[in-house]
């Protein structure tokens, strides 16, 4: 745990609203994202997140800091969300959802972009990727960022969650596996699928060669 996080948790234990507000601002967007894997409805997801924060307040004195606060927090969330989903008759575990979408997957790049296997250069680029003129991150157009946001939103729930936590929120692979109870391999497959699709969206944006 970082010193800043420790200070924040100490303040929370002492009942400071400011500390709670800061944690809420930091973590709620990601909590909502993960909640929505289990409960589709946005309003229900918000209730799940509220219940999670209540459990945090009730349990903060028992949190010993052996796991990171983030891991602890998201463990609570997934338990609350699963209970809620169970009541509503949706109890498919994340790993099973992941397997379902895997079966229907297409290649990372359209097969017709490569030479046919019968060719001397079979399996090599026939229509190769071209270099993008991508500006510095802070200069990216809002149009481009919106398109990428939409591309991520339209991914299957499992892929959307993994790419959101890894690439948008910047979590480590290990943390994502812990919170979503995924194997490392499964996590990587989902991440690959998601990134490949988002790359295709960017390629469309910049125009093919």
């Amino acid at each position: 745990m970082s010193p800043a996080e420790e200070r924040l948790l100490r303040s929370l234990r002492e009942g400071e609203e400011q500390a709670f507000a800061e944690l809420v601002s930091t973590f709620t967007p990601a909590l909502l994202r993960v909640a929505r894997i289990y409960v589709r409805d946005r309003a229900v997801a918000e209730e799940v997140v509220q219940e999670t924060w209540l459990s945090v307040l009730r349990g903060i004195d028992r949190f010993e800091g052996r796991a990171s606060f983030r891991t602890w927090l998201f463990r609570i969330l997934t338990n609350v969300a699963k209970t809620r989903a169970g009541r509503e008759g949706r109890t498919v575990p994340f790993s099973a959802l992941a397997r379902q979408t895997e079966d229907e997957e297409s290649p990372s790049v359209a097969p017709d972009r490569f030479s046919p296997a019968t060719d001397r250069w079979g399996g090599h680029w026939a229509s190769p990727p071209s270099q993008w003129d991508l500006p510095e991150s802070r200069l990216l157009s809002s149009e481009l960022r919106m398109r990428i946001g939409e591309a991520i939103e339209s991914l299957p729930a499992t892929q959307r969650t993994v790419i959101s936590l890894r690439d948008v929120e910047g979590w480590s692979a290990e943390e994502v596996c812990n919170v979503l109870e995924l194997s490392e391999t499964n996590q990587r497959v989902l991440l690959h699928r998601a990134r490949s699709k988002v790359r295709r969206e960017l390629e469309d944006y910049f125009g093919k060669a």
Partner: protein
Amino acid sequence: MPAQELTCKELVEVVTDYLEGRMPPDRRLLFEEHLAFCSWCVTYVEQMRATIRVAGTLREVDLDPAVRDSMLRIFRDWKEA
């Protein structure tokens, strides 16, 4: 195709294994050998890195104030209880 070669079509399927550092050393060697002679695949790997970078700019910094307030109400109710 000889076993000791990686085609472009195969390479694009294992880019994430490479970027995540989860490739066995012999596969990694094949991957890097391929990049040494294929500038198209170098471009492809750069595009995947760019994709990660663009995704990283999407982090929501501002929470919807109504949602934030509903979460803060939890705190006040809890403190009063």
